[in-house]
């Protein structure tokens, strides 16, 4: 240690340090323009000149590169020092009069106009660029010339290939003298581009060290070895100098890790179609033609324009935006992606709605499409609402996208349905790009040996939707075919189910049991609070004055220990914190750091390891809610940090330990519904090792599938159902209850008691989970002469003919299908999802029987989504005729002897046509059983169309808000067999997560009702969304079932006598926080 005097005060520094470093440590500000922590100091700008007294005389030295020595005396703000600096600034100002940093300095020193000859240079010759270039391991630029000739240049003033265009010089240049453009023009012969940010679809740049996106797991920066200069030149490594905890290790190598596993799940995802492959889309030529993924980023609050809707070329707010559907989808001729990408129609509609919301001005949105495929749950309603809001949906083919000379606008020419050619100009044009599987994934599949189809999706059959051609390897997500989030999430759970079925016997064989210290009883101790204030590196410490906050925290009531941490969440700090809790006898802990939403569980674990109840803990969010949002106001941020800690301490003083108790789980399942979904769920759960009671209200298993002939992939449904029924019958773990209904249901997750009623008796079973798979039914039409004429039939009735190979089919000459019978109308405003595929498939079957049969399909939108689009193409190739009709001009059917005449308006010819049909097949809707009683028994909701309503349509597609109850099959929404099976497997997987537990924990943050304060008004029972509160009529009080309570505290707010208290958030604790927030 070296001790010396700095402005009269004794300070200390390490041997070899320079004056500037020590001054910085003690908060003494010395101005500098040429200093950089990662570079050797050079003393170039002379601004850091300070006065040094060496015991005999005073002289002037540059603080950045003058090493400290024992006993020296340094003064940084004497009049002579200021005079000297002022002269320096004046000289800089004369050289570079227009440079912002120089201007700011000139203002500070009160220089209006320099006394010297004014030049117009932009370089202050600080040498940062040349030094950093050297550190990068290149030395492509250096200071050339002498005296007034000195400048930054390449050797011989020619562009050099030595420069790798890393941009470090531009990054450190304080004046902007060096820019990327300048590197391109004067320095480098190599390509100069920003590294495109993958997350922002290339609309923004990123650094070689980056966190891929804000929610990345793990949320750690990574070094991109293909971009990092160190891996090219062996130089740089500045990041390692800056990292305060020495976490960066450039010597790390890739490792090959071998794992023994019983199954493999492939979820490699997809790429979006790259429209730059085809110049017709003008994507590379026109800056305001963007892909839908780019538009998604433009709309995002975390995107390149912070959610402000502007177009890329000139950041102008667009007033007119167009979308072109099916870019890279349904196109065999050019891109070989003949399939439908399934998701683009819906995301385009979503983008029109969100763009309209974001736009300051009224926005004109137009979507150019072939068929709107909004076949998912509630999607048609969303489509309808967008149309009502004024979004234009134009059924058309666009043939030209071109620039509008003199503007950045985009002109499109298209042909409408009736053949008219139109041209429209848009401010911005979005290409709704499709999904595809990239070559790397195809190569991986080849190595593993699984078969892919011609589009590189896995080959899966309808009955094993997540299976691949190799046993033990499963696939999910877009890899098995284009699909949206809900279906991907379902398949993810389904593949987890399939992958673990044959591993059930190995469950828990590799687990270790964590040993925890006994919990200390702190009930008789007065509060002894420890406060740990985190710097989070510089995330908090760079804004909030942490030492000041630490001093403040020491003054708060019952705070006995305060410590400052660099990173509170690091493992060593956790261990230390645990020791401190024990040494200091702390019985409550406050951590002032980031957000409890990510870090509370971690710190609670530390408390548990120290023998404290985990609820004796509170966080003060001084990062996300403070330093990060008030970075420009350190004083206010510091005050707010003090307030937040004071509030946390006030609450912590009133915290009490909360109990969690273990309730044993009944390791069996109840599955309701004996269709394909119910049977699949039952068989999957049985294979997972759990007993299942399978309840079917009719006398036979099979459900709707009994009436189906073939799947879209031409597999025999009958044979599959037969096999599945046999599996159910032969599976020991499944108890089958036919002709049985559900009576009363009591209990909660892990502990249900349910009455099963049949003709003879009622029995009560105990089960841990329930899966509802009660299915749906075919709508029996009242229109189009159905039931009045033999030629008119529904899909299921037609399938019956196909199953029997009915001779009537051979005599048929003319067949007509009418789509959307009972679907997408006022009564059933949803799409039944399966009918387009079914009609198209049946039409092909007719043509296969006899190519001379005339088949016509009258449709509104053909929704053969995903790989099913192949069928649509095959049908057209086979000569099946497709006529679109509009909902206000429906076809008309009249009887004509054994035939019916179907009259409709062809929209291309714009005239009426009539077909005399032997068979008229109505693609009738699938409708809900509207089983309110079932929904009520299990306290699960039905939506307005009668479908069971899942907990979250995208993220929890087979769960209910009530724990322990799951859904699958058509009771959720109409769907084809492969989706029902995937959903059933998903429900089984989700159910198994409960059944695999020995016990469930209840308690913690739940409500407790004080019986002595309860007046029995039932107010709490009425507001509880979880049915967790019951009324004890004898005691005349409301009681909470802790297993059902989700801890929302709605009951506490509504009670007039404050009888319910949400533990951990009770009124006194909240009042304490309120009071302390406002009274320092």
């Amino acid at each position, binding site marked *: 240690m070296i001790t010396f005097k700095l402005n009269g005060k004794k300070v200390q520094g390490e041997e070899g340090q320079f004056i500037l470093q020590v001054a910085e440590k003690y908060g003494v500000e010395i101005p500098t323009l040429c200093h950089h922590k990662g570079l050797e100091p050079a003393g170039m700008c002379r601004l850091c000149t300070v006065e040094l007294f060496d015991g005999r005389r005073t002289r002037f030295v540059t603080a950045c590169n003058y090493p400290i020595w024992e006993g020296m005396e340094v003064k940084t703000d004497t009049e002579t020092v200021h005079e000297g600096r002022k002269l320096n600034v004046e000289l800089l100002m004369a050289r570079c009069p227009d440079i912002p940093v120089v201007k700011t300095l000139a203002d500070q020193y009160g220089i209006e106009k320099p006394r010297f000859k004014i030049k117009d240079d932009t370089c202050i010759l600080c040498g940062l660029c040349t030094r950093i270039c050297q550190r990068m391991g290149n030395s492509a630029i250096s200071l050339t010339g002498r005296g007034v000739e000195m400048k930054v240049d390449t050797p011989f003033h020619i562009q050099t290939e030595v420069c790798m265009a890393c941009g470090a010089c531009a990054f450190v240049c304080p004046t902007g003298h060096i820019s990327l453009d300048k590197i391109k023009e004067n320095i480098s012969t190599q390509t100069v581009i920003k590294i495109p940010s993958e997350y922002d679809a290339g609309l923004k740049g990123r650094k070689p060290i980056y966190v891929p996106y804000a929610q990345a797991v793990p949320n750690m920066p990574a070094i991109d070895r293909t971009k990092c200069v160190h891996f090219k030149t062996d130089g740089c490594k500045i990041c390692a100098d800056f990292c305060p905890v020495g976490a960066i290790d450039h010597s790390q190598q890739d490792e090959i890790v071998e794992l023994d596993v019983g199954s493999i799940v492939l979820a490699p995802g997809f790429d979006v179609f790259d429209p730059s492959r085809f110049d017709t889309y003008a994507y590379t030529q026109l800056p305001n033609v963007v892909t839908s993924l780019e538009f998604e980023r433009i709309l995002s609050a975390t995107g390149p324009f912070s959610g402000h809707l502007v177009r890329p070329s000139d950041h102008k707010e667009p007033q007119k935006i167009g979308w072109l559907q099916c870019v890279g989808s349904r196109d065999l001729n050019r891109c070989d992606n003949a399939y439908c990408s399934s998701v683009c129609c819906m995301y385009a509609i979503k983008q029109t709605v969100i763009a309209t919301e974001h736009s300051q001005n009224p926005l004109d949105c137009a979507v150019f499409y072939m068929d709107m495929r909004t076949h998912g749950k509630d999607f048609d309603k969303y489509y309808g609402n967008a149309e009502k809001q004024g979004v234009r949906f134009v059924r058309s083919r666009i043939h030209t996208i071109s620039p509008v000379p003199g503007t950045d606008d985009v002109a499109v020419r298209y042909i409408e349905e009736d053949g008219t050619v139109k041209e429209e100009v848009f401010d911005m044009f979005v290409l709704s790009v499709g999904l595809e599987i990239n070559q790397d994934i195809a190569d991986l599949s080849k190595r593993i040996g699984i078969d892919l189809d011609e589009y590189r999706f896995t080959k899966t059959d309808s009955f094993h939707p997540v299976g691949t051609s190799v046993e033990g390897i499963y696939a999910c997500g877009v890899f098995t075919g284009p699909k949206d989030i809900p279906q991907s999430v379902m398949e993810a759970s389904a593949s987890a189910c399939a992958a673990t079925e044959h591993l059930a016997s190995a469950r828990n064989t590799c687990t270790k049991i964590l040993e925890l210290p006994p919990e200390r009883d702190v009930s008789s101790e007065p509060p002894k609070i420890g406060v740990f204030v985190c710097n989070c590196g510089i995330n908090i410490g760079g804004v909030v004055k942490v030492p000041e906050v630490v001093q403040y925290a020491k003054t708060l009531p019952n705070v006995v220990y305060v410590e400052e941490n660099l990173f509170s969440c690091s493992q060593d700090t956790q261990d230390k914190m645990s020791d401190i809790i024990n040494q200091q006898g702390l019985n409550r802990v406050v951590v002032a750091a980031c957000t409890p939403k990510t870090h509370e569980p971690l710190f609670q674990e530390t408390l548990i390891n120290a023998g404290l109840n985990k609820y004796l803990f509170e966080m003060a969010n001084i990062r996300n*809610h403070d330093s*990060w949002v008030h970075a420009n106001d350190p004083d206010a941020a510091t005050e707010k940090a003090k307030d937040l800690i004071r509030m946390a301490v006030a609450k912590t003083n009133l915290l009490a330990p909360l109990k969690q108790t273990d309730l044993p789980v009944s390791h069996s399942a109840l599955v309701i519904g004996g269709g394909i979904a119910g049977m699949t769920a039952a068989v999957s759960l049985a294979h997972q090792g759990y007993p299942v009671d399978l309840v079917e209200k009719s006398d036979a298993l099979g459900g709707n599938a009994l009436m189906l002939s073939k799947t879209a992939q031409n597999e025999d449904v009958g044979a599959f159902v037969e096999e599945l029924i046999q599996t159910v019958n032969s599976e020991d773990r499944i108890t089958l209850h036919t002709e049985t209904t559900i009576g009363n249901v009591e209990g909660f997750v892990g502990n249900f008691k349910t009455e099963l009623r049949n003709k003879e008796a009622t029995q009560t079973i105990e089960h841990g989970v329930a899966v509802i798979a009660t299915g749906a039914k075919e709508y029996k039409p009242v229109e189009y002469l159905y039931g009045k004429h033999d030629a008119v039939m529904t899909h299921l009735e037609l399938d019956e003919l196909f199953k029997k190979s009915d001779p009537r089919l051979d005599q048929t000459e003319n067949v007509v299908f009418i789509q959307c019978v009972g679907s997408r109308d006022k009564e059933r405003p949803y799409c039944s999802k399966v009918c387009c595929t079914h009609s198209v498939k049946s039409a092909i079957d007719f043509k296969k029987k006899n190519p001379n049969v005339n088949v016509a399909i009258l449709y509104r939108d053909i929704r053969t989504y995903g790989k099913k689009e192949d069928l649509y193409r095959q049908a057209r190739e086979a000569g099946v005729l497709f006529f679109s009709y509009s909902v206000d001009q429906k076809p008309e059917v009249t009887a004509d002897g054994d035939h019916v005449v179907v009259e409709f308006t062809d929209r291309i010819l714009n005239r009426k046509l009539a077909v005399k049909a032997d068979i008229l097949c109505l693609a009738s809707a699938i409708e809900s059983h509207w089983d309110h009683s079932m929904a009520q028994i299990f306290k699960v909701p039905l939506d307005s169309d009668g479908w069971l309503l899942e907990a979250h349509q995208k993220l929890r597609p087979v769960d209910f808000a009530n724990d322990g109850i799951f859904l699958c099959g058509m009771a959720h929404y109409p769907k084809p067999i492969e989706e029902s099976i995937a959903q059933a497997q998903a429900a089984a997987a989700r159910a198994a997560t409960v059944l695999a537990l020995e016990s469930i924990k209840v308690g913690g943050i739940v409500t407790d009702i004080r019986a002595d304060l309860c007046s029995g008004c039932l107010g709490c029972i009425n507001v509880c969304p979880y049915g967790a509160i019951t009324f004890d009529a004898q005691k005349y009080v409301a009681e909470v079932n802790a297993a059902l309570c989700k801890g929302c505290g709605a009951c506490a707010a509504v009670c007039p006598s404050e009888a319910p208290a949400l533990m951990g958030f009770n009124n006194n604790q909240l009042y304490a926080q*309120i009071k302390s927030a406002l009274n320092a």
Partner: protein
Amino acid sequence: MNEDRFEPKIIAFMCNWCAYGAADLAGVSRLSYPPNIRPIRVMCSATVSPHHILRAFQSGADGVLVGG
């Protein structure tokens, strides 16, 4: 906060599942807003009763924000 100007003190009750997370995300996105609010995390905005709001005003708050 600047002492010369009126700077309101605002108590913000924030639902753990939405508004509190949104405020976290504002931080992650490095958005900037005035430092006048003092957030109180609650497990649902439904648990905020008129008592809490009145108590805040009684204790000197100039405004109350319930985010849920």
